[in-house]
């Protein structure tokens, strides 16, 4: 069977791949630092799920580009201006409340995105998304339970969860920004994602923040300073020892 050439743009798939890759790298920071061993493994599992999604998406992006770049070439040999991820995932998340607030938003968005891609017209993206949709359902469940537990917990946990939410909220809107050639229109996901997130916040007795959106620009290669440091750490080994395996 000959598959007709896909009309899906390289840049669109790259954006989704970079979201998953950068989020996985940030999640990895928690390994050995989570509040307890069980959570340490849970966050590592989530990060590895995202890394798996990133690998599939990067490989496919490389095929679409047609320049012979592998998943490793794309992950390790691009500079920050060539990354297309949203700002939500690239900033440090060294506060547990921030990590859970971010995971709630990100996984609620990925859940809608992958569900739509799984039914979409690009068969490769549909296959990748069809596998990922189950993983993301668990990520969303994990984030939801922590946000509710902390939000509807003690006075202190409630206050800290609200602060964490305020810190992440400016970066929500960028997820829904228009993208050229998008297989699933980001704008169309907005209502469903916000409905999911806001129902969790209500259960957690948290207030939906009223804050101005951040400038964003990740889909155009404009990033915060933080991404450069993340990439330096992530890419260092591969760049110093090209092709290293272990």
């Amino acid at each position, binding site marked *: 069977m000959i598959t007709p050439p896909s009309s899906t743009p390289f840049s669109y798939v790259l954006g989704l791949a970079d979201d998953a890759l950068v989020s996985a790298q940030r999640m990895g920071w928690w390994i050995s630092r989570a*509040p307890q*061993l069980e959570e340490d*493994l849970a966050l590592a599992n989530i990060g590895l799920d995202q890394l798996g999604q990133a690998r599939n998406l990067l490989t496919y992006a490389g095929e679409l580009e047609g320049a012979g770049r592998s998943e490793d070439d794309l992950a390790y040999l691009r500079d920050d201006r060539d990354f297309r991820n949203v700002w939500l995932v690239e900033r440090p998340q060294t506060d547990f409340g921030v990590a859970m607030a971010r995971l709630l938003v990100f996984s609620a968005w990925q859940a809608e995105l992958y569900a739509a891609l799984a039914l979409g017209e690009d068969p490769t993206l549909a296959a990748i998304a069809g596998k990922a949709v189950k993983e993301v359902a668990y990520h969303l469940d994990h984030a939801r339970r922590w946000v509710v537990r902390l939000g509807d917990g003690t006075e202190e946990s409630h206050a800290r969860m609200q602060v964490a939410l305020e810190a992440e909220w400016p970066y929500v809107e960028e997820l829904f920004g228009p993208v050229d050639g998008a297989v699933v229109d980001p704008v169309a996901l907005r209502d469903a994602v916000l409905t999911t997130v806001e129902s969790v916040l209500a259960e957690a007795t948290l207030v939906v923040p009223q804050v101005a959106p951040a400038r964003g620009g990740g889909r155009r290669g404009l990033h915060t300073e933080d991404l450069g440091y993340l990439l330096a750490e992530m890419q260092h080994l591969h760049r110093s020892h090209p092709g290293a395996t272990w």
Partner: protein
Amino acid sequence: MSTRDWPLWEVFVRSRRGLSHVHVGSLHAPDAEMALRNARDVYTRRQEGVSLWVVPSAEIVASEAGQREEFFDPAADKIYRHPTFYEIPEGVEHL
């Protein structure tokens, strides 16, 4: 509340349909819901199971080491209780 205050739970995994749940270890969690999720993340990340039980360790009634002889030794010389005199039909794996 530190992790040390969290109760201990025993974890049982059923590796596939038709088999029993088998004890695989324990973990700390503040409540049952969390214990179940922690068990998923700690004990089934390499496809070990299709079903999970978590049980509060405090709820388990265990035989005491000091009673081992009176509990278990009397069975030692009752070889006729073993079904070793039967031939197991071919294809029966878990009898």
